[in-house]
């Protein structure tokens, strides 16, 4: 079973040729400046790419399985934003498995704390996680 090592949101992830990750601009808050008197639509999305970086340590036998890293985003009122982001994992024996998921925008239709939920699936069943962290949107 994969064991979690790290899970973090950042603006950009750079992987060098040896697979060493550099995380650019770890953040947990979006601050928006709105035009005076304007309300933001409930389905508004900030067109700003960001990424979730996750790393997992495998156990013998994990390299034979097909794992999928999943991400869901929840509004402050707990409703889900967008579909579940899914990313196939490349798992090798005795090597930390890293997943970089680029997300092209962030919902900003509500102010408050958004929940980012991540987990790993095998055959559409959660086998590791969930790991959750918060992301704040402030107007």
């Amino acid at each position: 079973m994969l064991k979690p090592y790290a899970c973090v949101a950042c603006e950009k992830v750079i992987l060098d040729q040896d697979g060493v990750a550099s995380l650019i601009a770890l953040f947990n808050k979006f601050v928006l400046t709105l035009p005076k008197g304007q309300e933001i639509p409930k389905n508004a999305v900030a067109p700003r790419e960001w990424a979730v970086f996750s790393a997992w340590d495998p156990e013998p036998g994990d390299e034979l399985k097909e794992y999928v890293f999943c991400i869901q985003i929840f509004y402050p009122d707990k409703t889900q934003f967008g579909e579940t982001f899914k990313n196939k994992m490349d798992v090798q024996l005795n090597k930390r498995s890293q997943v970089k998921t680029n997300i092209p925008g962030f919902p900003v239709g509500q102010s408050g704390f958004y929940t980012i939920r991540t987990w790993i699936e095998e055959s559409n069943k959660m086998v590791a996680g969930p790991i959750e962290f918060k992301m704040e949107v402030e107007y």
Partner: protein
Amino acid sequence: MKYRCPVCMFPSLPYPPSNYHICPCCSTEFGNDDADFSHQQLREMWVANGANWFFGNTPEHWNPWMQLLSAGLGTYVPKTFFALRFQANASVESSGAGSAKHFETIHAKNIRVALAA
């Protein structure tokens, strides 16, 4: 096989975007609407009218702006704000005893990491 609408970028058309098929998302009738307007013009019209779902029940968790962003068309997403910037407490999570429940969180507070116009 699924096809992508060249107007609104809906990725799950059951038919190719031709032969008078209609996109359930943006309502474009291919071979008719796009005979008079370019796909870009039709997209601009769809966005200007609110980028609403056209036919039947809106798919669960569907968002028109993420649909366009995922296709690399972020320029069509309306910016309803003057400025946006990232702020960070540089939250890093590291493994503890090996399960998600044993995660430790390290906070380095009040570090401003990036500014974005």
